[in-house]
């Protein structure tokens, strides 16, 4: 059982500012269902003063993920965007009276969502994370930029801490070498800036990756046996999104997916569903994709059917499942 503070429990059981903010003009989405947590932060910003007047969130995740999201909204309301950008994940954790170390990544998710929402408002693409730093942990979609921020903001000096704060290395651990390289590099820079002492900085080889997962017990990676050619480790496929991506579908489906590929992906997913609808005398066709909105047209028996809304939500869930990101299926006439 996690040792959550009363504040974490309070914000989990009675989250403030949960739900959809209809007239949000700054939206940040991070995480993905495959990773086990995802956050959509919606802000209403006064364009003249850049003051955040309202903030709401939707979160898929554990207790501390929900509490961190709610805490984030409380922290940003009333601040200007520039003020809000000063917040770090540590501020979120502090607001909640602290988080268990293994759960610090929940606060990092809040930090990333805020950065994404502000960038969204200002019309800045913050995909430079991906350009300046390669994707390191493929299991959880953590790139170098995110790693460096987490290491610097929290003075991390061990591989375990990096995994706790970012999840990087929590999966197949094939990224270990690059994870270690990044930690060594950033720690060295921090030493030369006088932020941490030489003694604290991580030394290459200080951590044996074979020990990495013993503590978690349950999730020991299982190597393939010789005979059964059955894949055991299921790394989310490349089409799954990397976290902390700004514009929902645009960036998220895959870092390297073009607009056209993405639309084809959605199209083929809908094609797969059509036979089921046709069986009941209905049908569904893709009309357009706008950002995270998938516009579809229901035809045949679906028109005027009492269950049309359910059908739409079923199509939506199926797409979400395939693509791994929140998106809205909207019926059009």
């Amino acid at each position, binding site marked *: 059982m*996690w040792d959550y503070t009363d504040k974490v*429990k309070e914000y*989990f*059981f009675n*989250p403030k500012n*949960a*739900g959809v903010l209809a007239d949000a003009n700054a939206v940040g*989405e991070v995480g993905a*269902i495959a990773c*086990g*947590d*995802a*956050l*959509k932060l919606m802000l209403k910003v006064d364009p003249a003063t850049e003051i955040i007047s309202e903030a709401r969130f*939707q*979160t*898929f*995740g*554990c*207790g501390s*993920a*929900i509490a961190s999201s709610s805490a984030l909204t409380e922290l940003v309301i009333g601040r200007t965007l520039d003020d809000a950008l000063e917040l770090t994940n540590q501020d979120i954790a502090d607001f909640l009276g602290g988080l268990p170390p*293994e*759960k610090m990544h929940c606060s990092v998710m809040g930090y990333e969502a805020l950065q994404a929402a502000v960038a969204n408002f200002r019309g800045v693409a913050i995909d430079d994370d991906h350009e300046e730093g390669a994707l390191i942990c493929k*299991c*959880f979609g953590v790139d170098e930029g995110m790693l460096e921020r987490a290491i610097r903001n929290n003075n991390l000096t061990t591989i375990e801490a990096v*995994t706790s704060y970012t999840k990087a290395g*929590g*999966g197949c651990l094939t990224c270990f070498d690059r994870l270690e390289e990044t930690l060594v590099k950033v720690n060295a820079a921090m030493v030369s800036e006088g932020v941490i002492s030489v003694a604290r900085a991580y030394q290459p080889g200080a951590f044996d990756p074979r020990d990495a997962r013993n*503590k*978690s*017990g*349950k*999730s*020991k990676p*299982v*190597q393939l*046996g*010789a*005979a*059964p050619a*059955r894949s*055991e480790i*299921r790394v*989310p496929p490349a089409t799954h999104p990397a976290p902390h991506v700004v514009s929902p579908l645009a960036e998220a489906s895959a870092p390297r997916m073009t607009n056209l590929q993405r639309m084809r992906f959605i199209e083929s997913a809908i094609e797969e*569903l059509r036979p*089921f609808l046709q069986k*009941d005398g209905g049908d569904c066709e893709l009309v357009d994709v706008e950002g995270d909105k998938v516009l579809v047209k229901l035809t045949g028996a679906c028109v005027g059917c009492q*269950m049309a*809304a*359910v*059908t739409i*939500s*079923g199509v939506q*869930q*199926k797409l*979400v*499942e395939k693509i*791994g990101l*929140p998106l809205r299926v909207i019926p059009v006439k």
Partner: protein
Amino acid sequence: MSASYLDNNATTRVTPEVLEVMLPFFTEQYGNGSSMHSFGESVSRAIRRARGQVQALVGAEHDHEIIFTSGGTESDNLAILSALEGAPRRREIITSTVEHPAILALCAFLEKSKGILVHRIGVDKNGLLDLEAYRAALSDRVAIVSLMWANNETGAIFPVEALAEEAKAVGALFHTDAVQAVGKIPVDLKSTAIDMLSLSGHKFHAPKGIGALYVRRGVRFKPQFKGGQQERGRRPGTENTPGIVGLGAAADLALRHLPEEQSRVRAMRDRLEKGVLQRVGSTILMAGTSERLPNTTTIAFEFIEGEAILLHLSRAGIAASSGSACSSGSLEPSHVLRAMDIPFTAAHGAIRFSLSRENSDADVDRVLETVPGVIAKLRGLSPFWSESGAPQAEAFKPVYA
């Protein structure tokens, strides 16, 4: 009203009858079973009686086939290490992808440090073993097959009696981790080809720290601890008399309550399972079409995360468990659900309810009253969930089931 404990696959309560039998062995009959005086004599008699009670529960032919150990993990380790040592020319192990970490971690270690070839047989979406792959892996190079009788997370049962026959045909030993099965379903070892079986007391109302390994008469057994002559030298160390006596008493009670597991406990489980599936849409029953333990149900609630569900249930007085990553301290969902290829959308929200004969209909009622509200509340927070699809989604589900 007291809490509803529905996590009996994790561990169980020591029943008052069991505790009562144990207590004198702490302060009155505290002798060493090996001693030649009255203190020792009464203890060795109590141990003999307990051995017979465990023998009866698993249907072993002889009482000396029962070796008392500290529990499931030790029994699993002893079985595999002994088999490898006993057949030095056989350098392969067959196991499955859904075993308990006691088996998987040991196999990974043997693979890495001892050069043992480990075949890990996969399962399908319903938790059924890939029999073709199993047969393909069997050969005269295999020292031991270790396949669990029933899965701790889904309750899915492997056909171990038949699997054991096939192992016997190639001269491999067959071990089963029956920690979840013993006490819940009938086990009659003398009528099977199973060579070794692990059981653990705390899964059927005995205390933690006591278990047993069944080793069929005639099976070569290589002790892994060196020491005295206890357990005929196969597991040295002064006997844990209170634990052994408690295990015996619990085994006796479990045997007598076995019909109740199949009837009353199963009925409660079925009512809980059906009730939840009826009341909440977008749910998937794990290993739903497989033969399962009568006490276990694991239900995945799509688009929400398991730890959040558990926290809400706990506040409502319900203790269950989750295969989700966040609640276990690891970052990935359960290896069992992943081996079953359960989509991430569901695996993160899988909740296991495991009952025992100590549960009542009131516990089931409480779950049925509580769960729909908790799920609706969390789905209301989830960016992956749309309100229009909430309860009615049930009607839509069969299409993609």
